[in-house]
């Protein structure tokens, strides 16, 4: 899985989002050791300072825990992970509503369409 | 650092010249053998005598002259390409001063001249001695005998030493003269080689003008070089004057070396402009 970056926003922000996604979907399992800054920066092809900033944000999110002897680990607190999962889901949902609005569907119509789609694809 | 620079300059020099030196020695041996054996044999007449006797000798001299020319080419080429061409991007980013660069190349050129001189002398000896060792060795012993028997004037050894030193310092001055000319040529933006040649000639002209000025102010020992003309009755003038004359010649060469060296260094330090 590659990191993909756009030009219009700072890379550290995009990195933060993509790393959140990976953590929450289990690419980096709860409680596991998180790669070192330099190593992950090389993998992503970005400046280590940029990666450092992204990881600092993840720590602030509560997703990463820094232990002086063990380096960084992914949190194994289900609360933090669920919280993030919910936040990401809500972002996706908001995006959905925005795009539907641009197509001419108001919020209720968008929800209704979702309902129909949901039942059909069971 | 100077030693390290010289190591690499020396390697690039030896790579090019060892074959020439080996060739000189080999031809000398060949010539020595043919001269001393082949030509005596009446079977070798006319064309064969030419092929085996004269031709190798001609080749030997041609190779000797070629060596001198190649030394000159090497001196110019190594400075021009090695410091002022693309290689300059490597040379001038090494943590080494320009003085060390100049000194390394000049000293290696001097070593080149000395080794080539030694090879020529050894080849000459080989030429006369190969195939005819008994004659040659008896010639050597009788010559050594006669040399010991002559009562040499007291300062002769000093004079010989001065001669060798003058040769060494003089060669260095010639080399640094070339370097300064190339450096002056580098100051131009275009036609750098042409300007270098002009600079070389220009420096020569400047030197002879200066010499005239010095001469006309009567520095006697430079004017009266006849002091060490030798004839059957021995040296003219006092020994002290002769040695002094020699020393002042060496001094003049040292002054030239210093002038050329610091002139080149100044250009490399302040006006380097690689393309």
């Amino acid at each position, binding site marked *: 899985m590659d990191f993909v*970056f*756009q*030009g*219009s*926003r*700072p*890379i*550290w922000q995009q990195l933060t989002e993509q790393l959140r996604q990976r953590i929450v979907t289990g690419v980096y399992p709860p409680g596991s050791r998180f790669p070192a800054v*330099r190593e992950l*920066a*090389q993998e992503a*092809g*970005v*400046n*280590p*300072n*940029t990666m450092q*900033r992204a990881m600092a944000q993840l720590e602030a999110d509560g997703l990463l825990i820094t232990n002086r002897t063990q380096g960084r680990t992914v949190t194994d607190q289900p609360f933090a992970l669920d919280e993030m999962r919910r936040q990401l889901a809500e972002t996706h949902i908001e995006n959905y509503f925005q795009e539907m609005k641009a197509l001419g569907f108001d919020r209720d119509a968008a929800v209704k369409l979702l309902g129909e789609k949901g039942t059909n694809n069971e | *650092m100077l030693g*390290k620079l010289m*190591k*690499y300059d020396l*390697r*690039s020099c030896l*790579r090019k010249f060892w074959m020439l030196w080996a060739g000189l020695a080999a031809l000398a041996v060949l010539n020595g053998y043919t001269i001393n054996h082949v030509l005596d044999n009446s079977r070798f007449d006319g064309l064969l005598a030419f092929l085996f006797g004269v031709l190798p000798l001609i080749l030997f001299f041609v190779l000797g002259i070629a060596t001198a020319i190649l030394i000159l080419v090497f001196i110019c080429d190594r400075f021009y390409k*090695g410091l002022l061409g*693309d*290689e*300059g*991007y*490597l040379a*001038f*980013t*090494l*943590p*080494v*001063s320009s003085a060390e660069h100049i000194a390394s190349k000049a000293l290696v050129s001097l070593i080149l001249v000395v080794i080539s001189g030694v090879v020529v002398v050894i080849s000459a000896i080989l030429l006369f001695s190969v195939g005819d060792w008994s004659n040659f060795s008896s010639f050597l012993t009788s010559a050594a005998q006669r040399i010991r028997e002559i009562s040499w004037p007291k300062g002769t050894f000093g004079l010989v030493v001065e001669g060798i030193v003058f040769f060494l310092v003089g060669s260095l001055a010639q080399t640094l003269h070339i370097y300064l000319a190339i450096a002056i040529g580098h100051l131009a*933006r275009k036609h750098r080689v042409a300007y270098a040649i002009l600079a070389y000639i220009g420096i020569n002209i400047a030197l002879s003008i200066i010499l005239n000025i010095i001469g006309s102010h009567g520095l006697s020992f430079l004017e009266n070089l006849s002091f060490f003309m030798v004839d059957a009755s021995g040296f003219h003038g006092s020994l002290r004057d002769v040695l002094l004359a020699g020393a002042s010649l060496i001094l003049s060469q040292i002054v030239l070396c210093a002038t050329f060296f610091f002139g080149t260094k100044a250009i490399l*330090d*302040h*006006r*380097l*402009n*690689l*393309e």
Partner: protein
Amino acid sequence: MSNELVRCSALTRNFGPILALDHIDLVLEPGKIIGLLGPNGSGKTTLIKIFNGLLQPTSGSVLIDGKQPGPATKKLISYLPDRGYFPEWMKVGDMIDLFGDFYNDFDRVKAEDMCRALQLDLALPIKTLSKGTKEKMQLMLVMSRNAQLYLLDEPIAGVDPAARDFIMQTILTNYNETGSVLISTHLISDVEQVLDEAVFLQQGRVVLQESVDSIRERTGKSVDDLFREMFRAGNWEGGNNNAR
């Protein structure tokens, strides 16, 4: 160590009538990867040559780690020029020996490891290598040093996209993080994501010096986009192709 790895004060350089660098005031801090970005003829190579001591300023000054360019600063700088510079008789192993002889910060083991990875035989004469391999070799030598300042002049120009990725990867993997890397290029999109900071050079003047994050946050554009906008053909009176 002070917070100024490089300080230029009113740095000016002309070549006859051509003004290549125009009173540049610039400070580069350690620990950063900095892009020196500008069109051809903007003075990038001239600036790098002055940092290196290959060229003297006409006026103004530059200090590298507080010192004027000379053998002491050359010890700290690892330079990748935009051309080959090898003595023609050398083999790959000879160049490694040379770097080891002259630079205390040269990591021979790292160099030999990189040669293995590049499948470079140490006994190969350099003149038999292809252009692309020569460039990689040069990069290998430069990045095997633990320098305080890496000066890379157009490291990815004239190189195919796969090799570009390899080069950027090599730079990221090997540079000394307490030092800085200055990458001079006009191919911005390829290097943008590794840069901390961008310096835009136009006709010998610094027209922008800003962190990449700040540029993106402030303008909502990538550095590449901003560059194209600022240097669009109509916006400047043409580059000076004689000034290098």
